[in-house]
């Protein structure tokens, strides 16, 4: 049995401030977020291979199973439950339009990766999109509809950026 100490940290999740909360030193961030009721973050492999648990930590897409909750002291975290800005609402509509999900278990991670793609504010062709999402496993769709949705999201987003 390993030591199970508690550590006190502060951070923000989806604009909610968590001030001086106690977290177990062994708990990974994914488990911790789920324990807060943020069950939209899904655990598929807990070894960083499937991408389902991806969340945004300080603006970057991070595998929440690969970092400990004690490592996010001072961080700003966004989970699927907090992806409600106009850009991501539009992306969700585009995902629905293309049926870019079936069972929905990969969707939270897939949207987090999509957000990171869109944050780069540049065009990606289909092959590049496939490379960008190659760390997110989806067993249902075969990826094509997801690539369709991301491609359209990029095009729409870039048009808006270019139109000021």
């Amino acid at each position, binding site marked *: 049995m390993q030591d199970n100490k508690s550590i006190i940290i502060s951070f923000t999740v989806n604009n909610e401030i968590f001030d001086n909360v106690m977290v177990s030193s062994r708990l990974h961030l994914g488990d911790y977020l789920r324990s807060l009721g943020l069950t939209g*973050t899904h655990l598929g492999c807990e070894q960083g291979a499937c991408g389902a648990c991806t969340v945004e930590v300080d603006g970057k897409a991070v595998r929440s199973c690969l970092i400990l909750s004690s490592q996010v002291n001072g961080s700003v975290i966004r989970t699927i439950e907090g992806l409600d800005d106009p850009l991501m609402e539009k992306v969700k509509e585009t995902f629905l*339009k293309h*049926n870019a999900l079936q069972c929905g*278990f990969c969707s939270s991670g897939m949207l987090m990766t999509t957000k990171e793609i869109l944050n780069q504010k540049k065009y990606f062709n289909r092959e590049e999109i*496939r490379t960008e999402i190659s760390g997110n496993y989806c067993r249902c769709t*075969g990826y094509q509809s997801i690539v369709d949705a991301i491609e359209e999201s990029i095009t729409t987003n870039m048009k808006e950026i270019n139109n000021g």
Partner: protein
Amino acid sequence: MDDITLNQNPKLGSVDRPNSYIGRSLTRDGAIKHLEGKGQFVDDLILPRMVNLAFFRSPYAHAEIKSININEAKKYPGVINIYIAEDIDEVCKPWVGVLGHLGEMRSPEQSPLVQNTARWQGEPVAIVVANTRAQAEDAVEAIDIDWLEKEPQIDMETALQKDAVVIHKELGNNLFWTRTVEQGDVQKGFNASSTVVETTLDFARHTGVTLEPRGIVADWNKSEEKMTIYHNGQAPHMMQHIIAKHFNISEGLVRVVSKDVGGSFGIKVHVYGDEMAAIAVSKLLGRPVKFVADRLESFTTDIHARCHKISGKLGLDDKGKIIAMEINDLSGIGPYSMYPRTSAIETNQVLNLSGAPYIIPNYKAVGTVVFQNKTPMCQYRAVGHPIAVAITEALVDKGAQAIGIRSDEIRKINFIPDNKYPNKTPSGVPLEDLSHQAAMNKLLKMMNISYLEKQKKIDLEKGILTGFGIISMCEVTNPSPLFYGAGGAHISSQDGATIRLEGSGAVHVSSSITEQGQGTEAIMKQIAADQLGVSMDTVRVTLGDTDATPYGGGTWASRGAGIGGEALLKATRILKNNILQIAATIMQTDIYTLDIENNMVIRKNGGEGISLKKLAETVYYRGQELPQGTNPELIATSSFFIEGIPFVFTNSAMGCLLSIDQDTGLTKIKKLWVVEDCGTQINPKLVEEQIKGGVVQGIGGALFEECVYDDQGNMQNATMADYLVPMASEMPDIIVDHVVTNSGRSIIGAKGAGEAGTGGAPSVIMNAINNALFSINKEVTSQPITPEKILRAIGKI
């Protein structure tokens, strides 16, 4: 896509009318919850007083327990109790995975936990119950078991030899089941053939890798004697029956709820010891119990699939007409046949489906299924199809090469013509409403083979190995009672649907088929709204709850649309008739002058109608306004199962263009075409998504996926970093088109569409690779076709 042209089924009414939703690619609005993180998966559920489980699993493929010491583990923080087999066996009766209608199957009794001898690595041995899963896992490490290791029987090919390790002494040898199918006289057929071609293919084990692992929450409420199960399964009523039977609970007091399911593909339709053990713990403790497998547990305990070695022989005349086909298939299923479907069905499908698109007058198929000390093998998406299709289509290609005709020509010569159905497979299984000729013609137009031939030659001159392949296949869908029920398994082939008009004018549908992301909810809405004449947003749907839905089979074997959809269609027509009868009374007219459009009962010849809301309010709240004797049934239930044939078959034609890197052995799939005929498409977009997702799953089996074992039965790659699944960057865009031949077995005319992609892709990829390798007189015969196998085939290593 002009989706409306796909609805060519006159039994469904005109497509050019209000609320005509069947045949349209409507958005699956209910799926928005997943994009907002609001799905309800088993692991999201927390109940008061709930405890968590972790299992001690056998580290050996074959070993006897000499002693178990749990004393130290019991002292660990958070541990509530620890159970071994004798505790669990007190409340859970063992099961046997055999069916009675396919000849003798022999599989021993199986209990949730290992009693004396572990027979695969990962088999559950002991359970730690703790407040958290982490605490339970810690304590598992402190369980001390003294094992007597035994020699394992790993290789299926030696499992029946005299010196093989017999896994179940009481059976005398490792044979589970064998079957021979014979039609015509295969020996005479080969004697009459001018050309005979042969091949032997092998298919490694792979597994489902559902992104959401298997999971269950069991909640035994002693005061009500009621067991409530939250389970990410595919067949709630089947589980209800099994739980009632094995835990000695009245069936009506078992409720199985399956909310969101993170992928299933057949993995989640079987009875697993660890899940049964979790139910037992809830019964013993009287508390809610959660078990969710981790990824290691998924790899070593989710059923595996395939594991076949098949040899085949095809005899043809000098024109390329097939005279005889013979196959011999060997399959290894681990140490037990799975319950309740058995592990015989994959082989049975191979025997039934090989040669299915073609006229083959003389046919013989032998299947042998053996035990081995590996994870149990059972039905997974496209059960048996990849093997049956690959052996058939490899032999057909070889036949074409031997005779010197094109691969499309040989198929056209031998197809059962589209106008010659009903017909039979070479194995004697009835076929109807198929379109191999039309599908192949469409495929060839899409592929432009003469262009591909030219391109291939140009590529070869540049040193690039390019290949293309085509296949034709049948897919088993919409099974009848002959599939399982006839063999004694309590697995319903029937599905039911209930539809009601509510006081608000809203329409509620409940159905026994379930949702795992296919779009079940969406197509239920489309059928109900289309057939009733209401807007889609009026309809809501309840699925996956034995307390709230009609009885039925659930979602497996591509049966949701064809069977569950038909049940709903029938129920909706009854409800519509009831509504129109009431409306005719209120409106003082004949029922035949009325119809329902846009949530209104309308007069066909014009004039004032009545809204469904108003009609429902009258019935529910002001019944006194209606004449005595008015039938107030604003609810209707109907059921459906397939009669007269064992399955409703579909057919597909597929093509693949790929290139092979001779330095790395890497295969690059450039294009993959599919022409599918699944009859009426309720939502063409969702059909297309089933095909594409299925193809990619098939690509996984063809090129990447394998459960690798060492010679002691240890799985070597039980992580997602080591077990290769298809990821986005290696996958092609897939081009899908359709032929529509409605099934005559139902009004709705829909066949299934869930498994063709997975069944056909391994074959078309292998044919394309061998088409490329044929240019240099080489071939591959073993799946997954890894770069290493290609490099070995071309002599690079």
